[in-house]
């Protein structure tokens, strides 16, 4: 049984271009999380700042944020595992508290991607892969996930329409999320209309509609030990399971191409630590940077057997009223994907669900929630299991 709780959550709006600096962007989610936790900056013993470092001119943002957020002279540290940085920050905060070193830790994730062009951004993201042996061929993230999609389709018979159905689900909930960057409706018809932008190929078999958008944003999670949580919080959400794994950066070093080994390994660790299994999860957030990533997550997390994930989306089992609701905040596909902020945003969504505060997308009386957060094309994987206090 863990003694570490989440007592406050916050998220900025995710937008195409944030009209401010990174410290101001960080403030937006920090202020919301601190108010949610009903504490002040001086109650926070340490901070963990999460992002992918290549998007900003500012070196070492942790120190800059600590000053701007009123967190001096407390210690601060920067962590990075690409798109999984936010949940890696949560893992570090958990360890800092369980060790007794700190009592309350703020995990602040952010990314301001709008300062560079989309092509430059793709090039930087592509360099999150193997720059010596793969990048010289012109790699980018959609292409890696596209290769997983192609292998999944060839092995199991999943289809481009299954992937499009995942995007349609994302838009169903993204429309309800005031903090999402993409809130327009998306229909299956758009994918079958060659004139529609959604249907334009990016990296076959993935189309524009299969890919999430870059965004600017920040997220903040306040984590506390049992004593502090009991003293300040009426609705703590408990961290019950943590799993983390890494894999070969180069696809040449991998064995599995129809799922992500890091997700399978991290999920097994998290389920074991929590003492539960996939059937116990009431609501989940998965890392749908691409539609195929969500389909593979269904299988990697054990919501469906390998190769059977397509049936979950075909039967709408991952909609709010289905057997295992997934990404009821619209996912990365609708919210946008400000790399370092994404993990914290996913955690926030599950915390709100477990507190019964998710509004129109609220699942009925959930007890266990799961967060699946992936860095790179399956280079890093974190799975986190949270439990309601109710």
């Amino acid at each position, binding site marked *: 049984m863990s003694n570490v709780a989440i007592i406050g959550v916050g998220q900025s709006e995710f937008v195409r271009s944030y009209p401010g600096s990174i410290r101001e962007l960080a403030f937006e989610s920090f202020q919301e999380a601190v108010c949610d936790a009903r504490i002040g900056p001086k109650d926070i013993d340490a901070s963990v700042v999460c992002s992918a470092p290549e998007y900003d001119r500012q070196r070492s943002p942790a120190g800059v944020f600590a000053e701007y957020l009123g967190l001096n002279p407390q210690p601060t540290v920067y962590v990075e595992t690409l798109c999984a940085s936010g949940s890696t920050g949560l893992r570090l905060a958990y360890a800092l508290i369980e060790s007794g070193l700190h009592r309350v830790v703020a995990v602040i994730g952010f990314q301001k991607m709008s300062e560079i062009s989309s092509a430059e951004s793709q090039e930087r993201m592509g360099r999150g892969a193997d720059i010596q042996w793969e990048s*010289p061929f012109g790699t980018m993230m959609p292409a890696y996930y596209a290769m997983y999609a192609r292998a999944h389709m060839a092995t199991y018979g999943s289809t481009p329409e299954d992937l499009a159905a995942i995007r349609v689900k994302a838009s169903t909930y993204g429309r309800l999320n005031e903090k999402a960057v993409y809130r327009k409706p998306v229909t299956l018809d758009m994918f079958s209309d060659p004139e529609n932008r959604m249907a334009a190929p990016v990296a076959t078999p993935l189309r524009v509609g299969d890919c999430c958008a870059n965004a600017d944003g920040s997220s903040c999670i306040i984590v506390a030990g049992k004593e502090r949580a009991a003293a300040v919080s009426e609705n703590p959400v408990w961290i019950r399971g943590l799993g983390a794994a890494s894999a070969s950066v180069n696809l040449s070093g*991998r064995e599995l191409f129809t799922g992500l080994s890091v997700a399978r390994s991290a999920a097994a660790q998290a389920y074991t630590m929590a003492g539960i299994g996939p059937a116990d999860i009431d609501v989940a957030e998965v890392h749908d940077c691409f539609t195929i990533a969500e389909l593979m997550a269904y299988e990697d997390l054990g919501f469906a057997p390998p190769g059977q994930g397509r049936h979950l989306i075909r039967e709408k089992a991952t909609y709010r009223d289905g057997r295992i609701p997934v990404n009821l905040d619209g996912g990365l596909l609708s919210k946008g994907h400000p790399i370092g902020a994404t993990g914290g945003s996913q955690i926030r969504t599950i915390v709100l669900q477990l507190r019964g505060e998710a509004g129109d997308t609220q699942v009925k009386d959930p007890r266990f929630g799961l967060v699946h957060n992936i860095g790179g094309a399956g280079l890093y994987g974190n799975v986190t299991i949270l439990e309601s206090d109710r």
Partner: protein
Amino acid sequence: MTEKKSIDDRFKRFGTVSFTAVTRVNDFIDHLQAGTVSGTRCRGCGRLFFPPRAHCCDCLSGDMDWFPVKGIGRLVSFSRLQYAPSGFEADVPYCLGLVDFTDCKVFGRIAAEVPDTEITVGMPMRAVARRLESHRISYVFVPARE
């Protein structure tokens, strides 16, 4: 007068854009120049590596030998890119693939002259060295007859 030490930056010629200039496995470029795609074999424990490495992560030896990636492999997966990162725009569209040669897997491009309609998962392919413009060098996958 001391002579300025020259830097062995052969690797900067690899692929369309190389992000690495200096590596302990620079001989890879010379092997490509001679027409061979090569990996490394650990002299300590015999483990084969592609991409080539200067060090073995099993026995921690730094004593490596070269071996040629020969024969016919199977296409594990592929994707045709309609967009490209900065520096690769002139190559669009191009097709990335992963080929399993049993002893090792190799990531790279499928040769541009291979028609899209002929590319399928599981098809037999060979890896061949190929010279690019401006003295650059790479390798590509081409269909193989069994």
